[in-house]
């Protein structure tokens, strides 16, 4: 029970990071972006590449911060991966979404996003192979926090939780303490009025893709660090991040954060009674439950 909750919190933190950008993009551009979760995979693989590069160029960077398996090389690689992933999101928008946005309806955007997801996932497969990979081959020993009830946790997991919370806290400060943050919130609430108030919409769209891409990359790295990395990483997170945005209410950043934890913990608890094969379906059950009880989510407004 406790173990399930702790594991759920860890997964939840990763889902939350992924869902923040998605909820903003979905709200601002008004379409369900099924390619979004592929940003997690892009980020995780970008970090893999740069980790190897840094470790190769400067072997000193390749020692782990004990007891973590995280190395300085990977930490640096993650930061670069965040930038690269944000830039990829912007480029994909320019190449595909922006052009479709200009002439077609939102439904075509959803449709295109599925196509983009398929392309990204399989290009990653072609480049990196089907096989699961790890950042570090060091064995990460779990620490026994308690024997009764049994509670195991790996140092990397603690790091991931702290780092994820730190990133979310930072973004919260940006949203609530800077005029850039006000502008983001203004565009989310009323794009036309935001423009009239001097906010350039295209710049905000770019900013949201950059932020969403960056946070997603971190989420991807964090997942890969505590589990493993494979081309289906993004696809596996797709339904959970959507569930988090729906639970929180589309457009609500704080809702997405809370939604991520709810989805993580609820899935963890459900799997105590259900076989683990049903794990992929859990977010769907949560989505149905929310649609039944509170269709606009915890913090969402009526956008029907």
């Amino acid at each position, binding site marked *: 029970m406790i173990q399930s909750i702790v594991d759920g919190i860890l997964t939840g933190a990763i889902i939350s990071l992924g869902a923040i950008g998605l909820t903003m993009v979905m709200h601002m551009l008004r379409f369900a972006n099924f390619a979004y979760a592929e940003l997690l995979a892009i980020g995780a693989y970008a970090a893999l590449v740069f980790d190897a590069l840094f470790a190769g160029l400067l072997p000193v960077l390749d020692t782990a911060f004990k007891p973590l398996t995280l190395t300085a090389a990977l930490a640096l690689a993650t930061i670069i991966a965040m930038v690269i992933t944000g830039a990829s999101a912007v480029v994909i928008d320019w190449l595909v979404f922006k052009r479709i946005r200009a002439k077609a309806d939102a439904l075509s955007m959803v449709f295109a996003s599925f196509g983009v997801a398929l392309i990204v996932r399989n290009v990653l497969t072609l480049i990196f192979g089907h096989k699961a990979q790890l950042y570090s081959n060091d064995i990460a020993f779990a620490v026994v926090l308690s024997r009764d009830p049994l509670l195991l946790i790996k140092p990397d997991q603690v790091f991931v939780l702290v780092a994820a919370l730190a990133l979310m806290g930072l973004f919260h400060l940006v949203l609530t303490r800077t*005029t850039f943050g*006000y*502008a983001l*919130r*203004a565009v989310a*609430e*009323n794009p*036309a*009025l*935001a*423009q*009239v*108030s*001097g*906010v*350039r*919409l295209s710049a905000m769209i770019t900013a949201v893709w950059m932020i969403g891409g960056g946070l997603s990359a971190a989420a991807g790295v964090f997942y890969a660090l505590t589990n493993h990395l494979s081309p289906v990483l993004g696809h596996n997170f797709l339904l959970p991040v959507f569930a988090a945005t729906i639970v929180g209410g589309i457009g609500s950043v704080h809702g997405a954060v809370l939604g991520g934890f709810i989805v993580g913990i609820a899935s963890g608890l459900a799997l105590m009674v259900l076989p683990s094969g049903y794990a992929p379906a859990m977010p769907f059950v949560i989505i149905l439950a929310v649609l039944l009880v509170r269709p606009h989510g915890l913090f969402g407004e009526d956008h029907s």
Partner: protein
Amino acid sequence: MSAVLTVSALEAGYVRDLPILRQVNVSVEHASLTVIIGPNGAGKSTLIKAIAGLVPVSAGRVVLDGADITGIRPDQMGALGLAYVPQTDNIFRHLSIRENLALVLRRVEDRAARLDELYALFPPLAGKHKDRAGSLSGGQRQMLAVAMALATRPRVVLMDEPSAGLSPKIAAEVLDLARSLTGQGVTVLLVEQNVKQALRVADHCYILAEGRNQLDGPAAAILSDPLVGEIYLGGKRVGAA
């Protein structure tokens, strides 16, 4: 006297090949208050939005101080000295009052000082500056919307029915405020449904119907025009758009 803002032969609409405005001409003198009246659906809001760059213009020109600003990006308005108070949804409800104002003042050097000036100008806002704008009363919301428009010291202000939905007393205050702006050299283009009151404070008046100019002239003349009186001032207030 010279025209600060001129709209000539403007055609604009929301859907391609379906203009709402046809051949609309408006000319606004420096530091004057010009009011646009007309029945519901006449295209008054559309005209203001077209000037602000929020509705695509298919023909005609908008000229501000001699410069062609037809089809500007709405976010460039501020830089041109143009401000716009929309008819509805004219504040960010989820942002605090201070955040609403700070957003508009994003690019202003001395933001804190300007905020203080605005609070002095609109004392009720000062006391509530940390509250969410959505919690304000109707009159205070309108006050905030006007404060946001004035924050960047525009030379020309477009206001779309600023008195709609307010009590008669507060509506009169809003119109007086609009009038007082002209005393400070600000040019105001106002859309109003409170025709009588608006005409009392206005210098010039345009009547729009079905997307076309119907009549225009000095406000006093319009106010005393028997025909206009019959159609627009007959005591029957047309429902707010």
